[in-house]
């Protein structure tokens, strides 16, 4: 059984001017010990989805569908049970660690807090564990006595990771853990995460809009656009040979240093990002799509199979693969074979 | 540019839409409009001769009746009439001292936030000084030294109450100044004046507006307190009326209308200003906008 399974999850924010469908029917699956990358442009609903996994969204967000963690639906859990699951089974590395840490408490206390709350350690043991965790993420133990503002961005991000590891959860959700960081520190943090999942067999959901980062970190990749998954498949395949025009644009936007093709020839995707409150009809990508057909403006697209354990939501997938029947909601298989 | 006008209109109607959702603010605005209109109309709808003690027609301290809906004072004058005329002075003092205080506060705040180094340090020192000083005490001293009169009261209140505004404006100025568009403007060749008037002022203006209403409220309370403590303007004001009710023993002799009428007027109008100010702040201050989710 897979560790995490999302079934048609949708999140709608109620705001003054109406409803914002931030996530519109996402189904995903993650097996234990695997890493799943979620890419997509800014505002495509990645963070919303991540927060929905532990029901951390604000009150004005409505979540529907099913989020099965070890077969148990998070959305219908009792509060007590949910509290027990939070952090002990699944923990989160939040986007923007500078704000996710309490500015007035020592990082030691903050890392130890979940241990004590879940009754996993005595205070003394918790302190030892904190030192251990800090060593693991490459921070000297004396840093435990620091306050968040005394740390650099990379260090704070590492504290966040140490905190996520504190209760030895089976799943870590890392929301853009490196976006705010310098290339060099980004590399450090990525290396750290990579070694941690390798050593502890933890499952990982990593969110980023940098496809190349995800490709190097994850087994599988899902690309989101306007609240939907538009393409999914084995990470390298999606990165090297994207089937959806949006994934393609994303992949191409990253220049390869040394590649003469991109020398003095930057590529990008025109058009405006979609407004979730006023999504275009038909395929929501069609106004920006370089290869859109007239029918795209009216025809709903779904995730169609696009090769070995791959799916993509584009009509061109159909014509290329000459598959006419829709598979409906396509479920991402545990991708053992392509790891 | 007519497009600009439509823009402005759209912006205003957007503002109004948002403001309308602040129910308390609406009540406040309604009370205020009523109070201001009544104050403006008073000379037209009433006869000031009723305020002349030698021509008063009522009995002394008589309870509310048809002739005197709010009763009469110690000289048999209609309290309703006094309250109406008093509202003119109270509101005038409120508005003028708020204006004075806001002007000083805004200028000091923007200057302290915009300039660096010793200018800012000196301005902040002065501001902090005024901020922590007990302003009522200072106002009383000022009023005692400068002698009575409406303008003295306005001055005393205005001069002692600008500091918190200056702090607020300075903080806002600092955050505006930290925005890259200031740097950009500077890179385009802009000078101090251009930056302060084109970028900082429009950005702090909503805050100034919201704060002015709050300031009017506190100025009205301050006026009544000063009047009670003996520094009155000499004209009939709400504070002066309250003082009168105290001097003429209205409370012990059971003339509750004399005590309550001006007091409740103060409370109502001050509250209305406060509600409006808070509503304005909620609508206009982007920092607060997100809060009441």
């Amino acid at each position, binding site marked *: 059984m897979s560790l995490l399974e999302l079934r048609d999850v949708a999140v709608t924010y109620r705001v003054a001017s109406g409803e914002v469908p931030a996530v519109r029917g996402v189904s995903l699956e993650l097996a234990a010990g695997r890493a799943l990358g979620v890419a997509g442009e800014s505002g495509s609903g990645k963070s919303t989805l991540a927060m929905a996994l532990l029901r951390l969204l604000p009150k004005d967000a409505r979540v529907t569908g099913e989020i099965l963690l070890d077969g148990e639906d998070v959305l219908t859990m009792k509060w007590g049970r949910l509290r027990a699951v939070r952090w002990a089974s699944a923990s989160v590395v939040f986007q923007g660690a500078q704000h996710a840490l309490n500015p007035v408490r020592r990082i030691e206390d903050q890392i130890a807090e979940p241990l004590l709350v879940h009754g996993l350690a005595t205070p003394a043991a918790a302190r030892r564990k904190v030192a251990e965790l800090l060593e693991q993420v490459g921070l000297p133990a004396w840093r435990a006595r620091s306050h968040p503002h005394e740390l650099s961005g990379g260090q704070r991000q590492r504290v966040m990771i140490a905190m996520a590891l504190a209760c030895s959860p089976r799943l870590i959700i890392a929301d853009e853990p490196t976006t705010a960081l310098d290339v060099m520190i980004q590399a450090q943090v990525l290396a750290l995460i990579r070694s941690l999942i390798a050593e502890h067999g933890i499952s990982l959901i990593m969110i980023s809009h940098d496809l190349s980062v995800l490709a190097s970190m994850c087994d599988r990749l899902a690309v989101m656009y306007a609240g939907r998954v538009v393409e999914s498949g084995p990470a390298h395949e999606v990165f090297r040979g994207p089937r959806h025009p949006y994934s393609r644009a994303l992949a191409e936007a990253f220049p390869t240093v040394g590649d003469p093709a991109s020398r003095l020839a930057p590529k990008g995707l*025109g058009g405006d990002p979609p407004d979730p409150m006023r999504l275009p009809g038909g395929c929501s990508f069609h106004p920006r799509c370089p290869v859109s057909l007239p029918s795209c403006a009216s025809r709903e697209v779904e995730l169609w199979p696009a090769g070995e354990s791959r799916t993509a939501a584009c009509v061109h997938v159909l014509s290329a693969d000459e598959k006419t029947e829709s598979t409906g909601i396509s479920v991402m298989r545990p991708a053992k074979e392509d790891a | 540019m007519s497009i600009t006008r439509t823009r402005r209109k759209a912006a205003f109607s957007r503002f109004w839409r948002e403001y309308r959702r602040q129910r308390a603010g609406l009540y406040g605005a309604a009370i205020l409009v009523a109070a201001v209109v009544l104050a403006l109309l008073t000379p037209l709808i009433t006869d000031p001769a009723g305020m002349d003690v030698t021509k008063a027609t009522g009995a002394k301290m008589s309870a509310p009746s048809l002739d005197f809906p709010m009763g009469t004072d110690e000289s048999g004058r209609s309290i309703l009439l006094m309250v109406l005329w008093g509202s003119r002075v109270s509101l005038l003092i409120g508005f003028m001292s708020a204006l004075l205080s806001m002007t000083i506060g805004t200028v000091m705040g923007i200057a302290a936030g915009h300039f660096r180094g010793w200018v800012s340090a000196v301005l902040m020192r002065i501001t902090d000084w005024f901020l922590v000083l007990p302003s009522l005490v200072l106002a009383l001293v000022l009023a005692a030294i400068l002698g009575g009169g409406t303008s003295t009261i306005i001055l005393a209140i205005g001069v002692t109450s600008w500091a918190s505004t200056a702090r607020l404006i300075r903080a806002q100025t600092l955050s505006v100044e930290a925005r890259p568009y200031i740097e950009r403007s500077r890179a385009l060749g802009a000078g101090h004046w251009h930056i302060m008037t084109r970028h900082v002022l429009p950005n702090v203006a909503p805050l100034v507006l919201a704060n002015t209403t709050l300031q009017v409220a506190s100025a009205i309370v301050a006026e009544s307190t000063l009047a009670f403590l003996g520094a009155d303007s000499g004209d009939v004001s709400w504070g002066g009326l309250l003082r009168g009710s105290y001097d003429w023993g209205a409370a012990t002799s059971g003339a509750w209308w004399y005590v309550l009428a001006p007091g409740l007027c103060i409370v109502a109008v001050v509250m209305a200003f406060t509600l409006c100010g808070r509503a304005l702040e909620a609508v206009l201050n982007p920092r607060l906008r997100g809060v009441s989710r």
Partner: protein
Amino acid sequence: MSLLEARDLHVEFSSRGRRARAVDGVNLQVGEGEIVALVGESGCGKTTLARTLLGLERPTSGSVLYGGAPLSYSSRALKAYRREVQLVLQDPTGSLNPRHTVYEAVAEGPRIHGMPDEEERVASALSRAGLRPPERFLHSYPHELSGGQRQRVVIAGALALDPRVLVADEPVASLDASVRGEILALMLRLRDELGLSALVVTHDLGLAWNIADRVAVMYLGRIVESGPVEQILKSPSHPYTQALLSVLPESPSPVVLGGEPPDPTRIPHGCRFHPRCQVLAAGTAAGAGVDGRCRSQLLPVLSSSADSQVACHYAGARRR
């Protein structure tokens, strides 16, 4: 030939009683019609250098030369200077006053300088920056625009003054991957069409590869390697440049530099990179017999010449 030049520029800040040497001896020049990329990790002094070039920061020593003449800091001279040299900031959203329409934002420069034909100028700047037709955008507020459009408005604001040099500080860092290509293409086009010179500040080597003629790599306040893009990025000689290139996600063997990020208040002795230098750490430098010099001997400041040059004892030793 050189239009804008920094000559032995030093900028120091005093932060909490300590001196931070944010820019610590930089020679750099931007020629007519040339795009130079200035790369380096966060906090190495790139922004400070850019701001100093614009006269927004006074150098502690050294000078900024424009057209061969040193910059004067009288407010009059600065105003005139800023008509010709323009800055585009990192954050397009922050760079636009939310209360100004696109028109006002773009017209701000011409107004400050009292230029005639404001409306035409704004319209043409907008269309040159790729916002076409300009009328569609004139009365929009920044919040009604997408990130890419905002960045173009900022660029248009700079173009409205017909500058000869554009200093762009991380022009695409905060933008979505899908938009950045557009902006970069725009810069290339402007160079080709208008002969604009540009200094592009970034920490992204891919960007340099995308658009620059020349690249200068900065580390802790000083340029450690510079030269034509192809040469530097394909065969870097400085260990720091090598490390930067190696951590690009697609590179096969990343060299993650250890140690704490550099601190401009405590610049190490000898080669400023030596505490983190992987070449020194691996003993290769010792093999070449330069490790002692790495730890103690100062390196000369690189000149502003256009040729490829590097400030490294090891690279110097190998080249010899």
